[in-house]
């Protein structure tokens, strides 16, 4: 309650400062009268913000929007059902980044400019490594030769959280490299009471997503050059092994005994109850930390860009959502969906989105004054992470690769096999997958096991 009021006051101030057009009177974009549309959307921390923005749209334009709020576990199923037969009941689908390849390459979505040739993504809108564009010849998500298929209503990246109070008490600066993290962990951990660092280690998407920042930080990758058709498997490279070893080392020495089973909920829980001094979570989890009804360390946690290796870069993985228009929808509803989208991507709408609790996708909706407000201390890290943010597994075999990595990495973490053997096994299985789908692939030199 209080937070909302503070946010609203801030928004008002921001509005006055940037002289935004009177938000209550004129619509942010003139979209005309449109038939009602239905959006498939998931229940999430940012849903409240989205819903209030939609209500503003309805009030300003008089056009109706239905929101089918669906549990996350059911989104993919519903999206697939909608596009695979008959007429889709949804005019806008919300797709997680891992699913976009399937929908792009399957031809299930209509390119946005085919519906509205005059439509262009405003320059300030974040494109998250071009995941909204699809180059059908290369079967790759890139603006270069690609058509605009979707845009992101929400972009999640990893942020590194740390206990500012503990760091200050021990005279430590915000962590920049993984060595800093290890150092802080050794100083701050108290066995049985405070863990040095926590992140996901759970088998499957959990460990894959949370290990990839380490992988990217060392410049390693899964396939050599998938954008240009070279699917030689290079996951079992010395760099990847170093990344994996560092990750395992941190988890073993700084994490709880059940590090092999930590899911996102567990990581949030450990940070929010003060049981962890450092941790890596997605920015969407921030709302858990400053709310006294959800955490015992309100106000004590700060965010930083995901640390880098001393001899590498910051590795940041993107998990963003995408709004797309299904092909099997009547034309008038497609146009109505585009009208809403055009409105949604205006600066005014994005600021309303921020007020409601969402994370805006326009750079200019995050005025710099916000960063000096303690309530928004995560914004700087969020913005600073963008240059390093990468999409991974952007090919059709993505889900299979994820499951292979999700298993083998986890087995290395819990000690069932050495990191070298895990990566070698994963490489062999991934190569098999690529070969079956007809890619140009090959193996790399095996790592010592």
């Amino acid at each position, binding site marked *: 309650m209080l937070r909302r009021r503070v946010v609203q006051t801030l928004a008002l101030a921001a509005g006055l400062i940037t002289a935004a057009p009177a938000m209550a009177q004129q619509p942010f974009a003139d979209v005309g009268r449109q038939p009602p549309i239905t959006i498939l959307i998931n229940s999430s921390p940012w849903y409240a913000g989205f819903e209030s923005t939609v209500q503003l749209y309805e009030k300003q334009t008089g056009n109706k929007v239905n929101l089918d709020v669906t549990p996350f576990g059911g989104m993919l199923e519903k999206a697939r059902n909608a596009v695979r037969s008959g007429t889709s009941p949804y005019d806008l689908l919300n797709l997680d980044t891992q699913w976009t390849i399937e929908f792009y390459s399957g031809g299930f979505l209509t390119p946005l400019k085919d519906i509205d040739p005059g439509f262009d993504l405003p320059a300030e809108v974040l494109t998250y490594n071009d995941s909204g564009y699809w180059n059908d010849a290369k079967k790759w998500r890139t603006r270069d030769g690609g058509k605009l298929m979707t845009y992101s209503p929400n972009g999640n990246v990893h942020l590194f959280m740390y206990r500012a109070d503990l760091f200050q008490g021990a005279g430590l600066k915000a962590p920049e490299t993984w060595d800093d993290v290890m150092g802080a962990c050794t100083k701050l951990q108290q066995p049985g009471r405070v863990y040095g660092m926590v992140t996901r280690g759970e088998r499957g998407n959990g460990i894959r997503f949370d290990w990839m920042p380490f992988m990217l930080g060392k410049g390693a990758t899964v396939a050599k050059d998938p954008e240009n058709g070279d699917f030689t498997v290079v996951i079992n490279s010395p760099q990847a092994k170093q990344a994996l070893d560092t990750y395992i080392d941190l988890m073993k020495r700084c994490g709880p005994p059940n590090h*092999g*089973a930590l899911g996102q909920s567990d990581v949030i829980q*450990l940070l929010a109850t003060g049981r962890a001094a450092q941790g890596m979570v997605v920015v969407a989890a921030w709302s858990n930390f400053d709310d006294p009804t959800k955490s015992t360390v309100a106000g004590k946690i700060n965010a930083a860009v995901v640390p880098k290796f001393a001899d590498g870069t910051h590795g940041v993985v993107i998990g963003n959502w995408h709004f797309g228009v299904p092909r099997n929808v009547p034309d008038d509803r497609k146009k109505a969906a585009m009208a809403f989208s055009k409105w949604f991507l205006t600066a005014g709408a994005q600021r309303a989105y921020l007020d409601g609790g969402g994370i805006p996708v326009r750079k200019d909706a995050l005025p710099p004054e916000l960063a000096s407000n303690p309530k928004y201390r995560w914004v700087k890290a969020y913005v600073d992470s963008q240059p390093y943010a990468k999409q991974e597994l952007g090919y059709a075999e993505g889900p299979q690769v994820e499951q292979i990595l999700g*298993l083998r990495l986890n*087995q290395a973490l*819990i000690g069932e096999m050495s990191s070298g053997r895990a990566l070698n096994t994963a490489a062999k*299985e991934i190569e098999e997958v690529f070969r079956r789908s007809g890619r140009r692939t090959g193996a790399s030199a095996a790592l010592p096991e």
Partner: protein
Amino acid sequence: MPSRLLDLVHNTFRYWSLLPAIVLLLVITVYPALQLLQMSVSTIEFVDGRDVWSFTPGRNIELLLSDPVLPPAILNTIIFVIVTVAVELSLGLGLAILVGRLPHGRGGARTAMILPILVPPVAIGSMWKLMYNFDFGLFNQALDGLGLGPVNWLGSTNLALISVIIVDIWHWTPFVFLILFAAVEGLPVDVIEAAQVDGATNRQITWLIVIPMLRDALAVAFIFRAIFAFKVFDEIYLLTSGGPGTATEVVNLHLYKVFFEQNQLGYGALLSVAFIAAILAFLLVSRRVTRDTTR
């Protein structure tokens, strides 16, 4: 109702009592089943918004045989089925007979037993995950209170499967209880009283009269409990995702990953068909075994 119509109803009772069930089952279930069979020998790709089918039985079989996750999944599933069915049938039977032999408390017992199976699996999974939580969970708190160290319920390869089995036992013993208890309530009183008059001991009555009379209900409970055990998914998905490593990987979970997450419809369908065949084989074998031993 005019009497001729009434006669018709009576005379055709035999047919119209079975017809609705046949119609429903045929109309609703045959098409998906046939499509599944067809999928199992095909590869399906989506191009240009349409599905494209190609006939590839060899490829699917090869995928099935070379799947590295399948052997541990099969092993875990077998262990899971044997342990949970054995424990739940025994506990359910024991409880049903116990409650049957107590004069009061039946309504309360039945109502209590409904609760675990009533709550949606997602709530049960989240709840047990909290209880098994390493740092703050109920069980580790209790152990801490007793002066013992915390146990890594879901994160240790040795314990994970047992932890999941415990949840399943809690969740499904009431199911067995409800079926068996209904049978207990329907037992003919005179047979038991006659045995008591004849001087049979309680133990003899229970083992030589009551339990054999419960045989049909036990068979149904066994069949359906076994099928559910083979198809276990929710508990594992919510508690461990098949981990750590492959400690709690089961066939139905792997099927979900292949068919749904990886979108390999053809191979996934073949896996389903093979799985169904295995379950049916199991049921046929157990039927033959029990029939021979109770001869």
